[in-house]
């Protein structure tokens, strides 16, 4: 187990260093340096700039240095916990990323807090009796909600609850301070999209367990149905959903971009998109690495957790 963990962690470090190197190489092109200049000084100013002034500007920004040298500087900075400085917002990337991640973390917490019990409940109820009315109803709901892309769910919820009923604000920018009501629609959007998938997986796992021999034995033995479900079926049926739920972290990091942009919630996804559009290389680097770190970590947790929970599988 330790060996597996160590090799996976090593692999993660390898992947992250490869990715950061590639990103540095990509964003070293003249086009991107120009893009930063245009975004900071304005298009007119840049076209009026003489070549010498442009070089001086690059020098000032520290973009003149060859990229491998910049990369080494950056990597040694990261080792010391310094992620560089944002070109756009002129503050340290570490601080910026920390505040944004905290906001997205809060969003993610509520998404998982609602999605896990909801999808497990629906999935287990549906899987208990395959082909029953509740099974077909759950399947229908989950196909419907997963077919609505986040952007469509966001629009439908906004139109109903924010524009129609006026219960909730349509915008989560929260310029006038913290407001929990603004968080409801983004969380609901993400929950609705994700819940169907997890519920279907839970249903499949539950249905498989309910068809197995030992459940039949337990029922024939005369155990109360409740007890069969709670004590015998659930324990095995919830192993597969566990790994899937952990892997949803990876999905959430993609889903969060569109939801945060639509609701203008200043979180991690919006930071990444803004930085990418601006060409803010250090922010892109740090944000991508965080995203990859979370994604790979969730894969490792799900793998290791699966072997831990399911004694039938042991990696050697």
């Amino acid at each position: 187990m330790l060996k597996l963990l160590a090799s996976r962690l090593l692999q993660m470090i390898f992947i992250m260093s490869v990715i950061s190197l590639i990103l540095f190489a990509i964003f070293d092109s003249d086009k991107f340096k120009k893009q930063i200049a245009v975004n900071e000084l304005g298009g007119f100013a840049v076209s009026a700039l003489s070549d010498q002034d442009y070089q001086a500007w690059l020098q000032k920004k520290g973009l003149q240095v060859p990229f491998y040298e910049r990369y080494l500087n950056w990597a040694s900075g990261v080792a010391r916990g310094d992620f560089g400085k944002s070109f756009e917002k002129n503050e340290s990337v570490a601080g910026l990323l920390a505040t944004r991640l905290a906001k997205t973390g809060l969003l993610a917490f509520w998404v998982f807090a609602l999605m896990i019990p909801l999808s497990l409940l629906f999935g287990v109820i549906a899987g208990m009796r395959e082909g029953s009315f509740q099974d077909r109803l759950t399947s229908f709901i989950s196909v419907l909600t997963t077919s609505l892309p986040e952007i469509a769910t966001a629009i439908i919820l906004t139109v109903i609850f924010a524009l129609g009923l006026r219960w909730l604000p349509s915008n989560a920018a929260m310029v006038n301070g913290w407001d929990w009501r603004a968080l409801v629609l983004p969380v609901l959007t993400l929950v609705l999209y994700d819940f169907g998938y997890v519920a279907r997986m839970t249903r499949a796992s539950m249905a498989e367990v309910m068809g197995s021999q030992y459940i039949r034995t337990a029922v024939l033995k005369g155990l109360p149905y409740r007890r069969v479900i709670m004590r015998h079926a659930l324990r095995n049926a919830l192993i597969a959903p566990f790994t899937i739920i952990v892997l949803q972290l990876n999905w959430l990091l993609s889903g969060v971009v569109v939801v945060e942009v639509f609701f203008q919630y200043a979180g991690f996804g919006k930071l990444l998109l803004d930085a990418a559009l601006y060409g803010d290389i250090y922010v892109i680097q740090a944000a991508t690495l965080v995203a990859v770190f979370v994604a790979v970590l969730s894969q490792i947790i799900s793998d290791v957790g699966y072997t831990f929970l399911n004694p039938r599988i042991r990696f050697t």
Partner: protein
Amino acid sequence: MTAADLALQPALPLRLRIRQADSIVALLLLMWIPLTLYVMFGSYLGDTLKNIVLLPAIPATIALYLIAVTSWRESPVAVIGATLVFFWLFVAVSAPYLPLIDPNRPIAPFAEVGAFKKDHWFLLGADFKGRDMLSRNLWGCQRVLVWGVSATLVAYAIGAFFGLIAGYLGGWWDQGISLICNILLSFPVMVLFILILNYLGPSGFNIVIAVTFASAPAIMRIVRGLTLDTKSRDYIFAAQTRGEHPLRIMIFELLPNARGPIIVDACLRLGYTTVAITTLTFLGLGLQPPDPDWGLMIKESTKVAMVWKFSYMLLVPALSVSSLILGFNLLADGLREMSLRD
């Protein structure tokens, strides 16, 4: 061909003859090539050619729909899915011939649903520039469908190719390809999209590249697994003994025998790609104005339509894209159900 010759033909009903694979492929090409030409290379076609290029695609689409419905009639889910998908396909191929006004012509800004203004009846209202929503919405499906399906096809071609190589040849090939796929799969999809499209610039062709990077690794894994599964069958050994080239074995022996799960996954992936294109266009990284498509309509409306009165500007494209994705998902569900049954 005389009547006597016709009588000599084997007595196969037309319905069955048309259902054979070759004619389906021919019909698919007849539907797809004009549509792709029209959407991707419309500006190079010239006016007369552009006016007629989609004509053969209309009967082909209708014929394909009838074939799909008759051959999948055992699964109502698949039929509903096919109906949704083919509705949008039909709209896509027939949009130039439908009685719609120019989707890019500004007439009456903020005309409401059902309003009659300036000699035009706005069935679904008009957007903030006064362009007819119904027309924009129906025209919008062309770009989403064409780019979505093309991107999925390219991703499948590349993913399946590498999957076959990794699974069939094994060894270093497998190691190398799997490593690259692991690196690509460790990105959250949207992060990968943003990075690639930001690097290449927003356009339809670049979406194809981005989707390929994002989907091909997952496809490669599926195909690799299926290849490992079928590799040890007798007919593969027979082909090897005959001395067939490995490439030939991969494409003509392995791939056709792994098609069942691949088709189901392709339907699901078409849905994902449609979501991706709409979302990317909404984020400003995808297709560019002025031609309509659903993501663009949403993007343009979010700034002005955040009022109950104008919410149709957001709802119409959102519901349209959802119905298309629902169609793909139901199709995948129905096909999976049918493949499990037999």
